[in-house]
């Protein structure tokens, strides 16, 4: 097996991974950096982000407001020390991107422009039209090309972490073009492998978002934190799940039901703001969890519009006019016309809530360190947590940058602290086991299960029982069933026996990761007997700070469902209060 030695190995070359790699290369030009990714960096799903990235820069905004918006938006499940750090670093990171050439949209005087976003008291979202993530990703990728010490391993699929002597010392990955297993031996490993929205059938997430990075850490004994918190975005196209950014509402788009009523006012987010003059933190600019929940209630009341693709509400942007739509939301217009045959300039667009983002992920601290020495994580796959029970839109892109850089600095400090030499034989043996696991997948024949069949069962379970509203009964059933799927997974047969670009194998490995993540979601949700942020229980409708002002930690067990433990939330200055999104009281 080929062995590649590096000082730091990074798994994932999206926004978080690229920011990490650049920070390492800048800090020490002698470091050997291996940047490993199952797709070419610019294919990473950061490219799909539309709306923008939050960071305080304007004089009418303040760090205190960003803090309060984030912590309240997260229903007080955020670690407040981490939020403080995040907010302080945010403007510096976004400014750094400006200096690297990111084409941020501008004010007439040439300064960077900001737009309003849901749940934010002031305008603070930096944007590049409605392709912000795309431009961030390409700016980072292009900037990374400056640094010869960043050695890329594009289209390498990471399969296992190598852990010896109680610390992470590398990983194994399959070179997809040849099928060869490769052993990366590294002083430190940083996982930046993105989210896991593909556990659900209806999602804004691209095909690559299968929770691989979470599963890597989880199987190596690192807990997954707060996995029960899955964010629905209120405005997805009903046939494909393609996202229409929150920027649509930030620019003044409104949500109406079948009677043309702006129904959000009936769910504590009113009174109605004037059309085309959005009021921050009310109505359409409420937080995502509340908006998605309001849809569910409208559906139950029969107030939704029937479409070929199921029940919808309408996102009306017509009053913005063609000029503004073309200038601020050109991609949204293009997507609606192409994929739904609706032109937002002329007609309201049918939309419905869609699975979007994982608040939970690999348990990390404020330094982006996991409990396993030598292992760090950042980006959507990690859970610090600054997002708590519900992420505020536009905090994630900033999080990639702030904690991507932090992971790099922490890994360097760890390397400098001087680890003892590695036991090469032990690592090679582990890599051999990883290889054997893949070989055995190939060897199986006559298995009764199909990959797409199992995947569909998992997705259906998640949609039915782990969606916007959940019940104890449903979740218990889902837990049993997912555990059963995990067993049945052992019975899938690979029909593609080729070594070259074998996507049958890749999909099988991805399904394995998703099943592990899905179990952490359902077990965490079953055991959290309260309603908080994106986790809403019909049988426990109130937030219960007495018992559950805590992060959940799911520990992997090979032959059993995960074991759940809890960890106190760090509260420094904001005591849990009421989340108020009613304009009336302000």
């Amino acid at each position: 097996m080929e062995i590649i030695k590096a000082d730091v190995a990074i798994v994932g070359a999206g926004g978080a991974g690229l920011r990490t790699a650049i920070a390492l290369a800048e800090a020490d030009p002698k470091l050997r950096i291996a940047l490993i990714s199952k797709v070419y960096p610019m294919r990473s799903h950061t490219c799909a982000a539309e709306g923008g990235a939050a960071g305080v820069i304007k004089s009418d905004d303040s760090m205190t407001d960003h803090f309060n918006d984030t912590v309240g938006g997260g229903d007080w499940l955020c670690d407040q020390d981490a939020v403080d750090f995040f907010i302080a670093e945010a403007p510096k990171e976004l400014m750094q991107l400006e200096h690297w050439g990111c084409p941020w949209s501008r004010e007439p005087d040439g300064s960077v422009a900001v737009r309003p976003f849901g749940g934010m008291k002031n305008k603070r979202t930096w944007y590049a039209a409605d392709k912000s993530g795309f431009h961030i990703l390409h700016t980072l990728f292009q900037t990374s090309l400056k640094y010869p010490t960043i050695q890329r391993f594009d289209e390498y699929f990471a399969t296992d972490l190598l852990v010896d002597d109680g610390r992470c010392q590398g990983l194994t990955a399959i070179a997809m073009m040849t099928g060869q297993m490769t052993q990366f031996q590294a002083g430190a490993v940083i996982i930046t492998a993105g989210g896991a929205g593909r556990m659900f059938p209806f999602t804004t997430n691209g095909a690559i978002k299968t929770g691989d990075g979470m599963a890597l850490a989880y199987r190596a004994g690192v807990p997954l934190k707060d996995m029960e918190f899955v964010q629905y975005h209120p405005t997805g196209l009903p046939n494909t799940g393609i996202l229409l950014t929150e920027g649509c509402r930030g620019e003044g788009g409104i949500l109406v039901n079948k009677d043309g009523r702006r129904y959000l006012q009936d769910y504590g987010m009113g009174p109605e703001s004037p059309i085309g003059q959005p009021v921050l933190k009310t109505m359409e600019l409420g937080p995502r969890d509340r908006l998605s929940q309001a849809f569910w209630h409208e559906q139950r009341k029969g107030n939704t519009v029937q479409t070929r693709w199921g029940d919808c509400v309408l996102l009306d942007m017509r009053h913005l006019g063609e000029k503004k739509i073309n200038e601020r939301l050109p991609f949204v217009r293009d997507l609606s016309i192409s994929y739904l045959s609706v032109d937002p300039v002329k007609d309201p667009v049918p939309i419905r809530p869609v699975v979007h983002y994982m608040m939970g992920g690999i348990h990390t601290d404020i330094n982006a360190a996991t409990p396993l020495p030598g292992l760090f994580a950042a980006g959507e796959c990690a859970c610090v947590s600054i997002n708590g029970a519900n992420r505020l839109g536009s905090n994630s892109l900033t999080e990639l940058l702030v904690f991507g850089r932090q992971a790099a600095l922490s890994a360097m400090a760890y390397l400098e602290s001087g680890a003892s030499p590695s036991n090469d034989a032990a690592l090679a043996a582990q890599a051999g086991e990883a290889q054997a696991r893949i070989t055995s997948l190939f060897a199986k024949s006559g298995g009764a299960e199909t990959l797409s069949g199992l995947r569909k069962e998992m997705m259906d379970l998640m949609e039915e029982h782990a969606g916007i509203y959940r019940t104890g009964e449903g979740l218990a059933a889902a837990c049993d069933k997912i555990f059963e799927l995990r067993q049945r997974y052992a019975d899938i047969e690979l029909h593609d026996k080729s070594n070259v670009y074998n996507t049958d194998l890749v999909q099988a490995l991805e399904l394995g990761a998703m099943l592990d993540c899905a179990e952490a979601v359902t077990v965490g949700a079953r055991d959290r007997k309260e309603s908080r942020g994106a986790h809403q229980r019909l049988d426990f409708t109130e937030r219960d700070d007495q018992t559950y002002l805590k992060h959940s930690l799911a520990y992997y067990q090979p032959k059993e469902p995960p074991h759940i433990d809890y960890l106190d939330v760090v509260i420094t200055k904001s005591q849990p209060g009421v989340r108020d999104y009613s304009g009336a009281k302000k």
Partner: protein
Amino acid sequence: MSERQIQLEVLRYNPETDSEPRLQTYSVPCLNEWVVLDALNYVKDNLDTTLSYRWSCHMAVCGSCGMMINGEPKLACKAFIREYADQIRVEPLANFPIERDLVTAVEDFIAKLASVKPYLIPKEDKPIEAGEFKQTPTELKKYKQYTLCINCMLCYAACPQYGLVPEFLGPAAIALAHRYNQDSRDGGRDQRQEVIASHEGVWECSFVGACSEVCPKHVDPAGALQQVKIASTIDWYKEHLMPWVKK
């Protein structure tokens, strides 16, 4: 929802077992609103798990799914079934070596992108604390179009010159260099020009304009090429005929 039975002819090639590529036909029940990528996914999930192709975003922004559809370079996730007859042929992107099925080798393209120094080389040093480089909406507009490239390589598949002279830098790489050259914050044009004005740079382009026609993001790489070529010509004259004039 209207459904149509499509005969999807797909180029198959496995270097481990096939001596040459062959076409395989799948009969796929397609919804009219589907894109060709949905049909391929149907095949993968229901008919033949051994089919290999790249995709991720399904919204024409990640640039993974470029392929020849009925002989034209297209994004499979933005090629609507409704625009095709009942038989659709899908092949890997032209002008790139086939690795397997619809998967091509893209290293050459990536290396070309990297070669043009596609990053900001600031005109002036400025610490982060000093704030942003000011750039007016008009200055932004000057290069914005060229930032929209998703690296899908459709323009390379359409370019007759790249097919003939593989060393040619090609449309997207030159458009990317032009993007930074046109950025009011940038001062790196001379450095980039060295790469671009070299033999395999812009001079190979015969202005067929096929690249701009197939570009799904309206980047207009042909326009960028033309501008770069004019600028290079002026540089050449200044250097050779008017050496006293500073570039």
